[in-house]
């Protein structure tokens, strides 16, 4: 037998979604997480998250149970892998039952993904749902940095998901039934849209979806969605754009 190494220990940089908690009120967290996850259940399912407790460090553990909050996150099918605190040895740290890390995940993650974007090697992330949309759930403090769009020049197949974080998503090819394409900004599809398309998922209501043939199972702009049955039949199979106007979803031919 060769002496090929069976394991290799290396340092590595990974991008994870981080969930910043701004309140210890489980009802609010429950509600907001449910809303968020429901927009793209397949996207969030079993996604690892870093739970950011830094905003709650001032509270004492009599005031809330950190593990209950973690449990609450789990109930939404997210997978809390680590808790982040600005100071690991704060009293809160002792009571948390998952591993701890220290420091601001938020800026690290943002920087990491910006590097990744600029190196132009941003491919689809269906196997890597770890891209950050940190803080977007509970806070709303999303900064939009101008970034290169995520460009996909092959069909998106049934069962695949593509997420363009903080940028536009451009797809050259069909989006199959059961496929899910998601973006924080606009979605442009040069091909038929037969699956689900969700734009503005971090709350940007001025984003739009464009496609050359509308056959979608679902379209959603900033959380307002419509299913195929409610899309007017005369628009089906036609080039169309979808946007929000006065809080109402509008679908018009191109």
């Amino acid at each position, binding site marked *: 037998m060769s002496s090929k190494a069976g394991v290799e220990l290396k340092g590595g940089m990974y991008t994870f979604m981080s969930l910043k908690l701004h309140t210890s009120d489980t009802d609010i967290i429950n509600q907001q997480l449910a809303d968020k996850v429901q927009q793209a259940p397949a996207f969030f399912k079993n996604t690892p998250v870093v739970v950011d407790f830094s905003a709650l460090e001032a509270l004492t553990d009599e005031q809330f149970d950190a593990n209950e909050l973690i449990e609450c996150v789990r109930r939404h099918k997210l997978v809390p892998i680590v808790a982040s605190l600005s100071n690991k040895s704060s009293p809160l740290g002792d009571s948390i039952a998952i591993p701890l890390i220290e420091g601001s995940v938020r800026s690290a993650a943002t920087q990491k993904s910006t590097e990744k974007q600029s190196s132009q090697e941003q491919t689809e992330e*269906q*196997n890597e749902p770890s891209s950050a949309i940190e803080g977007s759930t509970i806070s709303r403090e999303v900064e939009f940095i101008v970034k290169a769009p995520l460009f996909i020049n*092959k*069909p*998106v*197949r*049934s*069962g*695949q998901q593509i997420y363009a974080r903080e940028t536009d998503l451009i797809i050259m*090819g*069909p989006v*199959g*039934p*059961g*496929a899910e394409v998601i973006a924080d900004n606009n979605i442009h599809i040069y*091909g038929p849209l*037969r699956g689900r398309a969700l734009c503005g998922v971090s709350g940007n209501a001025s984003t739009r979806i464009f496609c050359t043939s509308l056959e979608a199972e679902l379209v959603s702009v900033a959380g307002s969605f419509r299913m195929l049955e409610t899309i007017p039949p005369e628009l089906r199979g036609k080039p169309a754009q979808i946007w929000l106007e006065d809080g109402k979803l509008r679908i018009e031919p191109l």
Partner: protein
Amino acid sequence: MTKTIVVTSGKGGVGKTTTSASIATGLAKRGYKTVVIDFDVGLRNLDLVMGCERRVVYDLVNLVNQESSLHQTLIKDKRIENLYILPASQTRDKDALTIEGIARVMHKLKKSDFDYIICDSPAGIEKGAKMALYFADEAIVTTNPEVSSVRDSDRILGILQSESKRSKMNEEPVKEHLLITRYNPGRVKDGQMLSVDDIVDLLAIPLLGIIPESPTVLDCSNEGKPVILDDDSEAGQAYSDAIDRLLGEITKPHRFMEAPKKGFLSRLFG
């Protein structure tokens, strides 16, 4: 250079095993040293379609577990020179296979100078199907002209892009071919089935061939004879055409897309 081709679909009963048998036989007939592997552990039936079920001694699981040698396990076809069958196990379940074990088998086959390794995939998108497609250089996505079959094919194309060895190693992607099987032009005309154009439009991959629905296929299976060896049948000819395209004659026109003209009598009686 050995080429590994997976015959896959997602859905069951669409004609993967029929196709694997005929494609392997067709390639061997043209002089390529070919082996066809049955990955459907627990439900083996490739050996039946190839007519060698009584000659199975060892199987893929034995080989993977290093309980038998390649030489002992491969069954040499009695009709066609250069054609070998690697049967699945009837008694074990799919968990008996591991990527490492299959990698060893693939390596041995490559060292034995095979030109083509054809992998007959089990149905589904679970472990068994993923094993069968892992080492593929090319994929023949077998699709029936039905919505559910097309959707499963779309799904399997996604898995090829993300779970094959080529995708994991960041190599050139698996080359995709669409093979439409059990095509019944009459039922397409009636609107009961999707047309070739619909399917190509939905899946957006190059068309390798159209195999018409034909009772000869079942007759041949029962005889243990790959249908490609039946030169008189439309299905056999369609598989032969598909071999030509697979070997590079991509502009060869497609046949058997039209419903047969109705004869005088059937026109009278509708």
